[in-house]
């Protein structure tokens, strides 16, 4: 029983990280109908910024988080302005290739930056090594922190999208871009901001992930596991992204313990193939049909 609870907890913690990266995909997809294959790499860059803030500048943990989010969000907006704006309206595949290229550049450039390089770094958090005991259950402080902070971020995003003018404008843009234009919403600026938010969320995920996987230039490949999360939740659904992430995290966590060796690494992909087979639009996906 304790075993199951432990596995559930670590699964949820991992799932939160997948969910946050998937959230980035979904935000961008909903707003601009393009898929950002570099989301994992943006997360990697974000955690490197966190590393700079925490180790090189010696800032406290909360400042590290804010620094990483802000700097990465600015990077995200610059990427949108410089590279994605010119190809707005091109087929989705074009954007996929551009973001794949961005991912390559990010992986390459990160290794060239002094103090980042190709080595594996650790990012100290206040939770590292802390343990919370609830009865027989031993909870790692990091995992509890990840879950709590993800919940907090989701709350903030929820309030932002429901209550603020900008958030509502973003929702309108994602539902119907043309109609949003007519309503006087600055759609292009909104797209830039969406990229900023997605990059910021990715940086947050990167900071949370840093104590678990360490910070290195290939940590962005975990973004490839967030794709299944986004698909399981339905690509166009924000709560779906988090739920999908949790599903993938839990499946992976349990597969690692109960299934034969090797299944853990591909569990996410098996799940996504099954979901695509059974419900091609994901658990929360909207039904799509194309007008001629």
């Amino acid at each position: 029983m304790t075993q199951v609870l432990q596995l559930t907890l670590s699964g949820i913690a991992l799932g939160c990280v997948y969910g946050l990266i998937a959230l980035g995909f979904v935000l961008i997809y909903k707003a601009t109908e393009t898929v950002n294959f570099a989301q994992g790499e943006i997360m990697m860059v974000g955690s490197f910024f966190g590393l700079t803030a925490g180790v090189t500048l010696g800032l406290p943990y909360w400042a590290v988080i804010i620094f990483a989010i802000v700097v990465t969000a600015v990077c995200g907006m610059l990427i949108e302005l410089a590279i994605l704006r010119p190809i707005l309206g091109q087929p989705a595949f074009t954007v996929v290739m551009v973001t794949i290229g961005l991912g390559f550049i990010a992986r390459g450039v990160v290794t060239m930056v002094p103090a980042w390089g190709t080595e594996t770094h650790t990012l100290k958090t206040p939770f590292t090594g802390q343990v919370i005991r609830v009865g027989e259950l031993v909870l790692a402080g990091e995992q509890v922190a990840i879950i709590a902070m993800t919940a907090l971020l989701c709350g903030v995003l929820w309030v932002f999208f429901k209550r603020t003018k900008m958030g509502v404008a973003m929702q309108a843009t994602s539902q119907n871009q043309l109609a949003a234009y007519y309503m006087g919403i600055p759609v292009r600026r909104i797209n830039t901001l969406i990229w900023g938010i997605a990059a910021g969320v990715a940086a947050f995920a990167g900071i949370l992930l840093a104590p678990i996987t360490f910070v290195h230039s290939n940590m962005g490949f975990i973004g490839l596991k967030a794709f299944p999360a986004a698909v399981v939740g339905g690509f166009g659904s924000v709560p779906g992204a988090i739920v999908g992430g949790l599903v993938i995290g839990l499946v992976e966590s349990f597969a690692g313990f109960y299934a034969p060796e090797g299944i853990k690494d591909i569990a996410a992909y098996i799940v996504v193939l099954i979901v695509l087979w059974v419900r091609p639009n994901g658990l929360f996906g909207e039904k799509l049909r194309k007008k001629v």
Partner: protein
Amino acid sequence: MRFVFKTDYQQDIKLFKHPGYYPWYAALAILLLLAPLVLPTYYLSQMTLICIYAIIAVGMMILTGFTGQVSLGHAAFLAVGAYTQGWLYNKGVPSVVAMGAAVALSAAVGVIIGVPALRVKGIYLTIATFSFAFIVEEVLARWESVTGGNSGLKVEDFYFFGIDIAASEQRFYLLALAFLVGVMLLAINLMRSPMGRAFVAIRDSEVSAQSMGIHLARYKTYAFAISAALTGFAGALYMHKIKFVSPEQFGILASIEFLMMVVIGGLGSLHGAIYGAIFMIALPQAISIAKDYLPAYIGQQTGLQPTVFGLILIGFILFEPLGIYGRWMKIKAYFELFPFYRNAMFKRQKTYMKSDRLK
């Protein structure tokens, strides 16, 4: 500017559009056939690799460039081809039979991955293909009795109809070149057959293709099977060329490389497939040569290659969406129309955000 005056329907499906092409292709053929006499072994070996990659690129082109189905899992087909070839060949099966088996098995795997493709499209398909490729990679690493697991699979030699191909680079090159020419002819013929036309129709608009009576499910499956079969065939050659394969050669990065090959070469043209293959083999060489001339700080960086790859990919998409082939078309048009060429002639049509979602 040459205008081809058509007097016959057969002219529409001719292999060469007009006789002006004959001398150029003849010259190309002579150059390629003379290459083994002149080039040093190392360059010849790279040429062989280009031929093998070009076969993969043709396979990718049929699926991605002509049918419009983006696959990020082609490394899996290459792996299936390579491992089938290696395993059977080591069991003493003649290489021709093994190649047949490799092609058939890859095609079968292509059909399996094609099945979800009938229900999902766009980005979902891309995710389905790379998920599938991950699973294949893991199977290769775990199924040790057949694949040798992470320690890989080796072949010692390559006898093709009793000829020891692996003994000399010249022989391998000529064989790969012959196969490439065969594959090209097959692809050209495919694209002017009803099936090829159906592929292009599906790429341009699935709804219109369907209303013209094209069975979407069937033709998409064909496209996957043909593409996978060609990639598997290339895999069989790859096995003998590299002599040693292990699962990590067939990861997601390889699949991305194949996709980059067709995008940079020029989507939707068979010339583009060849250009893409040449580019993909030549670029790492060019980078390693350029390293000697760069300042030491930059030249020593391991991240140089991915950065250059990414920059070139983005550069092509932003400035030359039709790839190397598109650039070639423009240069050709410039000289054919001289002095009437205008920059705006190939200007990308201004498009507005089109939603695929119904709202």
